[in-house]
């Protein structure tokens, strides 16, 4: 497929130039022209007042694809503990499987027979389980090789995993090997009613805008999904399913995990379990500003978090970062102070129950997701709020 400008219809109004996020439209002899930078996002189609821009289908677009069958969730375990995001994906995967009229399966490397049953209780109809010791500890090559082998044999149409260090490291290898499309860090998944393609929604351009990605031909459709953005399915202790034993015969590795060392970063764990989070951004202005946040956090019994801007400024360590490249959190109360609200940040906190935004710029995008918005100077508002709550608690 490609995008074409009908030069006879083009009036040279340049409306399409602004609409293109890729700078792929140029004016040539007073008419718009699509350059090779075009990513087929179709943003320009609707803005042309003359209807001069259209998509042109090519033979390859009409080619039938062997869709495959089944929705798979790679269930990540570390030290025998199944990752929360894997259970969330079983919840989301169930919805996708129902829409497609297909089955939901989990893939488990390492772990015990009971872990496999647990995945069934969380919604999997089938579990492909390999308990070979080679796979008990995460290692890219054997994980990628065995999952690729299973996919080639079974031909699932969708394969999902959590956007964790593990999923983000070995899924790309699988996608490269299978010539499959892989979308990173999705925050939402849908099925296109007409084509049955998986629509993978993720923040793009540093997180300032959302993009819907799809794979028109390649199968399986693969995606990593942010933790804590999907809801877990229903746990049913009596649910029965099939466990398929998978052999790791012939799987080798050129890397060896010598040791795994735990460093309990308390704040990192606190953040994801916190009921109340006080977060600061560039608007806090520096260390002194963050001191105000710590005081507010103390009276609320909250954890302190930050946007990428504040972390990049060096005002607070990386482990406090919330957002696309930091942690995803979902507290009861999230107080965003001096945070403008780039999507990069929003995707990490917008599932919070109540969001309070304090920012001096009334146009700041953070107000778009806020439950309560206060336009004002954080250096005035935050200490006032701290004092008020302190008084209230006596």
């Amino acid at each position, binding site marked *: 497929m490609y995008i074409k400008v009908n030069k006879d219809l083009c009036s040279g109004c340049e409306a399409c130039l602004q609409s*293109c*996020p890729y700078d792929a439209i140029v004016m040539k002899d007073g008419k718009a022209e699509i350059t*090779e*930078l*075009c*990513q*087929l*996002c*179709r*943003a320009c189609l609707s803005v042309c007042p003359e209807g001069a821009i259209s998509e042109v289908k090519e033979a390859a677009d009409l080619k039938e694809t062997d869709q495959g069958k089944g929705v798979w969730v790679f269930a990540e375990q570390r030290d025998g503990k199944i990752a929360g995001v894997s259970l969330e994906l079983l919840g989301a995967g169930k919805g996708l499987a129902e829409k497609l009229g297909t089955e939901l399966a989990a893939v488990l490397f390492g772990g015990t027979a009971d872990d496999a049953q647990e995945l069934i209780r969380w919604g999997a109809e089938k579990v492909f389980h390999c308990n070979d010791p080679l796979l008990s500890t*995460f290692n*890219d*090559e054997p994980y990628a090789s065995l999952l690729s082998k299973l996919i080639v044999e079974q031909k699932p149409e969708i394969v999902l995993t959590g956007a*964790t260090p593990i999923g*983000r*490291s070995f*899924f*790309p*290898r699988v*996608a*490269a090997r299978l010539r499959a*499309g*892989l979308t*990173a860090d999705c925050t939402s998944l849908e099925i296109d009613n007409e084509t049955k393609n998986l629509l993978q929604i993720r923040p*793009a*351009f*540093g997180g*300032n*805008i*959302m993009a*819907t990605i*799809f794979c028109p031909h*390649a199968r399986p459709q693969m995606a990593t999904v942010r933790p804590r953005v999907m809801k877990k399915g229903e746990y049913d202790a009596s649910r029965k399913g099939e466990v398929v034993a998978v052999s790791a015969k012939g799987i080798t590795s050129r*890397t*060896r995990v*010598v*040791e*795994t060392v*735990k*460093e309990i970063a308390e704040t990192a764990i606190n953040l994801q379990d916190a009921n*109340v989070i006080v977060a600061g951004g560039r608007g806090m202005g520096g260390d002194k500003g963050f001191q105000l946040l710590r005081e507010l956090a103390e009276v*609320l019994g909250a954890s302190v978090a930050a946007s990428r801007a504040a972390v990049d400024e060096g005002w607070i360590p*990386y482990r406090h970062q919330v957002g696309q*490249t930091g942690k995803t959190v979902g507290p009861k109360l999230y107080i965003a102070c001096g945070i*403008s609200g*780039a*999507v990069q940040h*929003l995707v990490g906190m917008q599932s919070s129950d*109540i969001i309070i935004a304090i920012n001096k710029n009334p*146009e700041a*995008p953070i107000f*778009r*997701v806020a439950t309560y*918005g*206060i*336009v*004002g100077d954080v250096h005035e508002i935050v200490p*006032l*709020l701290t004092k008020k709550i302190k008084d*209230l608690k006596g």
Partner: protein
Amino acid sequence: MRIVVCIKQVPDSAEVRINPETNTLIRDGVPTIINPYDVHALEAGLQIREKTGGKVTVLTMGPPQAETALREALAMGADEAVLLTDRTFAGSDTWATAYTLSKAIEHIGADVILCGKQAIDGDTAQVGPEIAEFMDIPHISYIRKIVDVSIDRLVVQRLMDDGFDVIESSPPVLLTVVRELNVPRMPSLKGKMAAKKAEIKKMSAADIKADENDLGLKGSPTQVRNIFAPEAKTDRKMLEGTAEEKIDTLVKELVGLKCI
């Protein structure tokens, strides 16, 4: 040791703004830089060269303007720079990008390949591991420390959510690095002068003997269907009045919701 560092030219701020009226990106006047993670990868490459000897090649795929990023890398101390540029590369997703880079690296020759963990514009973290797969070599992600490196042995620490893993391997290998690995050096004045005059080697699709069906938009399994601005909440309340009054209202609301 033959060291290849893959870099990407990105907009300086990851926080490129959106025009709220037209929902389009405002990119005018945003300068470009080397992706910050890639600068740490380059520093790691230079440190490995200092230890084992050898050559550091920086490689990027992009439009002719990406030459600026390569010159910055040369100024930091890279020995040579290669720009992969060809109209057929345009529209590449991570799969096609990694395929193209892997073909170029095979052409250049490498024992250790270094990449940043991810680029700050796309944030996918996919290209590094995919290059390794195309080249059929192992990769190790999120390197926070290189404990030992030589032509026949490599020991590194991989950063994980709950700590780190110590991993052993041997070249050829691809590593993706995180920021805590090192503190990148500043380019020297002499380096800057030399970089200005240095020759940038250019490679096209024909030079790397790539299959054109695997390049650019044509070779990309994923496509962008549409882009849109995130939705606004409908039930939000903007609090009015003086600062005192706003806080009073807020605290009352929060008490009502049993948040405090």
